[in-house]
């Protein structure tokens, strides 16, 4: 079964075996390789490629689950409906705002966290490391609830703690408007995912050669100069990988929005829009079209990162 997915044999010579013709041994090795890796590969394709193809197909129909008789071919009609609807552009705007804000803050904050962890004394390092893993491991829904309860008028303490700030009072309704809702959503996302970024950056930080730091120090560079001229340029790969993953992850935001606002006050993200069309309104056709557009957006982001910033994913994967 897996044989069908074999790439065309021997037009392109694998880099790692430069010596001309393939021996029986390497042929056997190739077969074994696909035999072992094939099932995992196949399952991955089955659980993603197949549904997305199916989604493309559904998206061409006007198809509502409650009204299956009236299923009709629409061509690109669904896409036209979506792309000319303000709801779609609103959800794109919300998603982009959340993505840009959270990723920017997380990168700076994550870098600070990584610096502290790198310098933290060995006596407290295990404690810091365990603490930092907790937001990563906690369920997103739980984190969303924690922050929502903290900010909500009926259950929260935030209003009474921060009443001294201008614009905050005992009756501030954080979930009553778009901007303040998005603010709370961003805080929850930032809290949850900064630790992961900081771990990636910490690993990158460890790859910056100490010799360079010492040399810069001897040459009289200030700490600030060393950070910008030595540390950051040397860990560019790690920064880019963290940035790429977080951007794609943030763009798919769904859980926090569902829990905190359920899309009220124009806080609907693209994922939430797709969910609402499919599951709540059982508009399979429209929902599929939104899903396909979301998928295309993610592909576009990934592609522009890899081309634009030249993120070397081969290196990121540990494939030298």
């Amino acid at each position, binding site marked *: 079964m897996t044989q069908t997915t074999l790439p065309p044999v021997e037009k392109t010579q694998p880099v790692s075996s430069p010596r001309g013709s393939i021996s029986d041994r390497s042929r056997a090795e190739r077969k074994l390789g696909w035999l072992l890796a094939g*099932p995992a590969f196949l399952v991955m394709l089955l659980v993603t490629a197949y549904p997305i193809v199916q*989604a493309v197909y559904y998206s061409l129909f006007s198809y509502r689950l409650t009204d299956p008789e009236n299923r009709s071919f629409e061509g690109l009609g669904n896409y036209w409906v979506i792309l000319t609807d303000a709801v779609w552009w609103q959800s794109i705007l919300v998603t982009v705002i959340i993505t840009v804000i959270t990723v920017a803050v997380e990168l700076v904050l994550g870098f600070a966290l990584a610096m502290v962890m790198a310098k933290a004394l060995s006596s407290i390092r295990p404690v810091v490391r365990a603490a930092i893993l907790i937001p990563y491991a906690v369920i997103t829904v739980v984190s969303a609830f924690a922050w929502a309860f903290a900010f909500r008028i009926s259950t929260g303490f935030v209003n009474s703690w921060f009443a001294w700030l201008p614009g905050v009072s005992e009756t501030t309704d954080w979930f009553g408007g778009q901007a303040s809702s998005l603010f709370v959503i961003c805080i929850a996302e930032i809290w949850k995912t900064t630790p992961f970024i900081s771990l990636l950056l910490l690993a990158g930080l460890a790859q910056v050669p100490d010799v360079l730091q010492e040399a810069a120090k001897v040459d009289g560079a200030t700490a600030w100069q060393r950070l910008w001229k030595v540390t950051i340029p040397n860990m560019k790969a790690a920064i880019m990988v963290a940035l790429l993953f977080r951007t794609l992850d943030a763009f798919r935001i769904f859980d926090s929005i569902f829990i905190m606002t359920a899309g009220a006050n124009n806080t609907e993200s693209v994922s939430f829009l797709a969910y609402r069309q499919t599951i709540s309104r059982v508009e399979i056709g429209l929902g599929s079209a939104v899903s396909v557009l979301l998928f295309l957006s993610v592909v576009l982001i990934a592609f522009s990162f890899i081309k634009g910033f030249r993120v070397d994913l081969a290196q990121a994967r540990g494939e030298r």
Partner: protein
Amino acid sequence: MSTKQKTWWWIGGIVIVVYCLFPIAWILSLSFKTTADLANKQFLPSTWTWENYSTILTGTASDLFLPALRNSFGICLIATFISCVLSMFAAYAIARLDFPGKKLILGTALAVAIFPVISIVTPLFNLWRQIGLYDTWPGLIIPYLSLTLPISIWTMSAFFREIPWEMEQAAQVDGATTWQAFRKVIVPLAAPGVFTTAIIAFFIAWNDFAYGISLTSTSRARPVPAALGLFSGASQFQDPTGAIAAAAVIVTIPVVVLVLIFQRRIVAGLTNGAVKG
């Protein structure tokens, strides 16, 4: 480092710990509040109570929470197990064998990892209804593989690359049979990597919300995050906040325990797969 600098890094460390634990402490405190206390606008309860825990474990909400907890454990463990077995073979092939398509497999894993979950939900929702997998365990286990497999393949290949495989031959030279060499040399070397991968995969499956809420409709298969998301409508006469907080604490306990015990390995697993060249 001077004493002054040391103090600053100490303070930095403490700030991080507070930052990470603060929301957890808050939801913990919330779970011990009485219904009257919920609106006290304070961080801590004025009187501590186990009331919320009894509501979800033995009381009115238990028929919502307990099946969800069972579903979550069952579905996540099975999905983790399947993806670990599949990726163990794949990672072995990637780390040890020379075959074209290695890059294709790793590239596919990457593509699947960045795939928007919701895009899969729509077609599966319809398909599962047609073939009867809607609201069943397999109906969630299968899509969960799209979450757990890619990261398992990456993490495990990164671990397997660092295993000194020559030791297998060395053992055979010393007179061990192939099986003994595998059993006594390779398994102990590979086990930590497999184990760490399993923990990370479990975290990811445990965290899922989108599949859980879209592909289930009753307590037959609904996992905890989805059940929590729908808790609010469950009991009209009572503010569900306390019950949600208590349930949130209970589902957080397993991950906290895993983190505390295996923190060093988890960090290695998370960063090996992603950054190290």
